[in-house]
């Protein structure tokens, strides 16, 4: 542990990509745009010593999709890099080249929300069953579940 990063330090590294604000005593958030994420992540890794990807939070806020990359390092400050993606074209370049664990996380986000990570080496289904229909993304706010048809058993029979 090397001591929390100060807001000024993070601002000087990441301000060029968007607004930087302190959201918690140990979490600083950058709001930026999709095409700048790669470079922002790279700068966080090199200039701010971030060596651990905690999570790629993905959500549908009703209007558009949001992705938030949470990184941390020996300083134990969480750097959150947040972007928004348009609903009609949720595409984002992959970050698995500089953040290997993103390989799995991006596949899961693709499966559940339908965000396409361009350049991903293996963007296939990972969490929904193989007979799950295409283009059904359960975590989207406008998704309605379909009735499930069981294959047998006695549930419908003589109760």
């Amino acid at each position, binding site marked *: *542990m090397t001591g929390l990063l100060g807001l000024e330090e993070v601002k000087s590294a990441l301000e060029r990509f968007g607004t930087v604000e302190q959201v*918690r005593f*140990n*979490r600083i958030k950058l709001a930026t745009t999709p095409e700048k994420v790669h470079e922002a992540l790279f700068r966080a890794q090199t200039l701010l010593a971030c*060596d*651990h*990807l*905690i*999570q790629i*939070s*993905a*959500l*549908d*806020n009703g209007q558009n999709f949001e992705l*938030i990359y*949470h990184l941390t390092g*020996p300083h*134990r400050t*969480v750097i*959150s890099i947040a972007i928004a993606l348009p609903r009609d074209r949720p595409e984002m370049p992959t970050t698995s080249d500089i*953040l*290997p*664990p993103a*390989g*799995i*996380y991006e596949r*899961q986000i693709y499966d*559940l929300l339908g965000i396409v990570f361009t350049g991903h080496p*293996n963007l296939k*289904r*990972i*969490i*929904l*069953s*193989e007979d799950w229909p295409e283009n059904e993304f*359960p*975590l989207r706010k406008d998704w309605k579940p379909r009735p499930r048809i069981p294959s047998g058993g006695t549930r419908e029979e003589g109760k």
Partner: protein
Amino acid sequence: MPEVILPIGPQHPALKEPVNFRVIVDGETIVGLELDVSYTHRGIEKAAEQRDFIRVVPLLERVCGICSHAHAQAFCTGIEEIMQLEVPPRAQYLRTIVAELERMHSHILWLGVAAHVVGFNTLFMWTWRDRETTQDILEEMTGNRMNYGMNEVGGVRRDLSPGQIRSILSRLPKLEEQIGKYVEMVKGEETMLLRFRGIGKLSKAEALRYGTVGPTARASGVDYDVRRDDPSIAYPEVPWKVVTDTNGDVYGRTLVRIGELQESLGIIRYCLEHLPEGQIYVPAPKVAPKAEILSRYEAPRGELAHFIRTNGTDKVDRIDIRTPTLANWTSVTVSLVNQNIADIPVIVAAIDPCLSCTSRITILSERGRRRGEMSWAQLVDHGQRFYREGGRS
């Protein structure tokens, strides 16, 4: 070149029946790896959006039955911070006691399973017998042996009487003695050393690069433990230390887990002896203000992250859960390539996969063709036979 597919199941490695875990190998060496986590996907994150803050906690507890308190913990502390609730100290101490008991039961369980995988069934039986002590304590405290239902937003549901505290404290020395014996057993047992040393080795740089967490990362010298680095509940007030190791292999992970068992026992004892008086919960409002929080907790398997966004209603707008096992799978992918089939069970078991947080692995070569199949039981047997007959090629 013969290609064999070895299916290995999503069930707990101690159970003998596989469902699916396909490895395509070139002779005895593994060529490639693929992952499929759909078998236990239940749709919990979506369901959580439709349940209020009281009903959602039992659901989140059952993401994983072995680290159930950790999930409820991460969620409750996150929501409490959003609601700006001041949770009473007694509740925080009680939460810590249950959390560390859970860590103990999980690590002892793991030790038994790891021993079983290499054929050291005596240790399997002994550890699970000792584990019953922790299960009894948990049942007396919370009413259930697993999925305790102890946490709620605002505190805990049940209190401890002075008689219970005395009773629990009296059982800890025996458990401590048993755990001390595990260290000797692991260090002195030839089979375990042979099967664990040098296997699944991850350097510190690799552990960080692949996003590993928990004992798997700490065994490679990564000094990261959320209980110290983003503390919650009673950890800042209790004297304890983070256990790390430099071996980086399965042996190192075993030593880290045993070390954590000893630390956990110390934390439980301290919390019981210094349990503050007072309330065990504070009434929580029905509705949470609009906010977002990244709530982290150190589950037995590693860093657990709950990203929660609330929207001014009595339900979450979104909860995004990243389980520690998912974070560790990338390292399994990497550390299995070019290893022997015989080492698969040990390498997989060494990250302590919570198989309801994730599920099965399909391992494929670039060509992706398949010809034969082996079950998990056959794989475990194969590993034991391989090492009995002379060891790695």
